[in-house]
């Protein structure tokens, strides 16, 4: 195709990874970064619809939301928070390794990031199965014990769990996508496709990964810590 051949003529004078629509590597790098930031803005609005709705209902139905929150496992939630913050650290170290051209360190830190992501998803799965077991899944298996929700209005507890599953589910979906991106990046890093001149994909993937972490930083207190237990 014409685009491909045009790209290959440029390749003679430009480093690998250069796309023909740009004038130089710097322009490409800036465009890639701006593109990801704009995408993250759309993600904020995407989650924003849920956060706004959560805020409204929490102010309307605080007792039900507190009762719902008390049914979550804070220890697992806190562990997962620590795991994700750890994965952000390894991700930042991976970007640094890419900038300084350390291929082995880059692959190692990307793998560590993926391991921590997998630990998070594993713990999340464990939490979900406990909720299923206790009949706390709205729409699919909703049969909570009387004493569990402390006589709070059952409807608003169910509403809380709708938010719990929609918000953490959407977040987990983003983690899965991030996991896929990291797999691709690890393979590419292993093959040595990145260099201090061209590491934009690592940087941009890192931005995404940090964003997904930050979403969790907001989800954790909103869902796990509003029960007033401490």
């Amino acid at each position, binding site marked *: *195709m*014409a*685009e491909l051949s*045009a790209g290959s003529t440029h390749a003679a004078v430009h480093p690998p990874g250069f*796309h*023909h*629509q*740009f*004038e130089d590597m710097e*322009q490409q790098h*800036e*465009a890639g970064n*701006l*593109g990801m930031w*704009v*995408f993250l*803005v*759309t*993600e904020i*609005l*995407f*989650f*924003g*619809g*849920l956060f*706004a*709705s959560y805020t*409204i*209902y929490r102010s*309307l*139905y605080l007792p*039900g939301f507190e009762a719902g929150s008390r049914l979550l496992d804070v220890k697992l939630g806190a562990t997962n928070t620590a795991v994700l913050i750890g994965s952000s650290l390894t991700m930042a170290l991976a970007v640094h390794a890419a900038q300084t051209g350390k291929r082995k360190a880059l692959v190692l830190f990307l793998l560590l990031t993926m391991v921590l992501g997998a630990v998070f998803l594993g713990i999340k799965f464990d939490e979900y199965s406990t909720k299923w077991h206790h009949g706390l899944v*709205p*729409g*699919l298996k*909703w049969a909570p014990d009387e004493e569990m929700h402390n006589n709070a*209005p059952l*409807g*608003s507890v*169910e*509403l809380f769990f*709708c*938010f719990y599953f*929609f918000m953490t589910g959407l977040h987990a979906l983003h983690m899965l996508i991030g996991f896929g991106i990291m797999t691709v990046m690890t393979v590419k890093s292993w093959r040595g496709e990145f260099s201090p001149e061209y590491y934009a994909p690592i940087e941009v993937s890192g931005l995404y990964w940090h964003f997904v972490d930050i979403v969790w930083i907001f989800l954790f207190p909103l869902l796990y810590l509003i029960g007033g237990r401490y």
Partner: protein
Amino acid sequence: MSTAVMETPAASRVHYLNANYGIKSWLFTTDHKRIALLWLGSITFMFFIGGAAATLIRLHLIEPTGALVQPATYNKLFTIHGVVMIFFFLIPSIPAVLGNFLVPLMVGARDLAFPRINLLSWYLYIIGAIFVLYAILTGGVDTGWTFYTPYSSTYAHSQVIATALGVFIVGFSSILTGLNFIVTIHKMRAPGLTWFRLPLFIWAIYATSIIQILGTPVLAITIFLLGLERLLHVGIFDPAIGGDPILFQHLFWFYSHPAVYIMILPGMGVISELIACFSRKRVFGYAMVAYSSMAIAVLSFLVWGHHMFVTGQSVYAGLIFSVLSFMVAIPSAIKVFNWTATLYKGSISYDAPMLYALGFIGLFTMGGLTGLFLASLAVDVHLTGTYFIVAHFHYIMVGGAVMAYLGGIHFWWPKITGRLYPDGWARFAALIIFVGFNLTFFPQFVLGYLGMPRRYAVYPAEFQVLNVMSSAGASILGIGYLIPLIYLIWSIRYGPVAGPNPWGAKGLEWETPSPPPTENFEEIPVVTEEAYAYAEPEDGSHG
């Protein structure tokens, strides 16, 4: 800027259309110009599907008792018309077709920043369209394009989930297109092309893209939650557990009012280009027209509550939304006044694109002013849910957005195809469309004022004369839309060769041959002057 491009017959020169052949070279292209043509074909197809639904609606309403279909079918017809026309024609129309083709050319770039994402955007549109077409063919959907809960989530017996999924998917297409434009306009302008040398079309597309990336995700999550609620029979809009259906309306209109500006802002950008070219003048108050696009983008997010004056929103919220809605009229009026001021003492020629532009100014002004009726709290109580609203938004969306789209297609057609279309037929079609449009929708203002509600399959006999007028107008309008379809297709093969700049217009897109080469420019141009640097008429250089 640079000297005129030497005229070479299109057939002997390699350009984006003949660079390679075969279905694969189109379906896997990353060339923004080819992707624009993929969009042109697909949205034209969807336009005629939405148009077929409109035709059936107008045929049905010829008789007070309904001439054609069962009431349940009628509900499906207006829903299909709304969903298809809004999400699958108007929202992509100017940005995805003209924007895709023109943004890189106008900013002097070789392509958009992310060509593969650009192609992905088209595929997402196709997948979304397949879902909606599937829903239409397997029983249709009857919720109205607004999908209000709890009807859509609980009571409707139609293909809500498939349609919602289609709208959800096409939303990502819109987001990615906006993202691509924002990055391209920020990072890929040619040397010397500062922000205030940009064509006003680019400013309009930029403002539109901001709305697309900020608004569409909210619609996406809302539609997603609606689909889940329908699937699971429980969710956050479910009154049985304390959920609030009004919340759905807030979230829906938080996107869907700005979406109106996604439809009209690019049209305003097109009109600025046409008015400048065919008046041979720089647009009066260039900076204010550019700023007004941004002002519309900002204000568009603060007015959604005017759709909910009578649906249970607090009176105080209603007051604030009313005031804010009036404020949107200011930047819109700035544009209209500045276009007319541009015409003043211009050397005006009435080519077909200009006829669409002049039609746009009149029709958009009527649509905008009747919007103020609806933004007034007390008047809205009488007019809401009547044909007055239907007429109002069709003056904006059809009289405004579609007229601008057709004007733009006629203006840049020689650049896109390298061919001219028959001018006489084009002017004739523009007039037919103008007449047919007014005959269709002006009676609806009167109908609404007299109290005829929208979305009903039957109506009192006293409204028949006006309804027959409207239906007669719709058939004229339909013919008006078919004529360009015929002569534009004809011109691709038989039209006279256009040359690089048949209108004598300013702008980088006219400095490259028609059709442009795949890489757009042999060398990236250097810009040394402001947009629309037409010689002033008092210099004696007009003619």
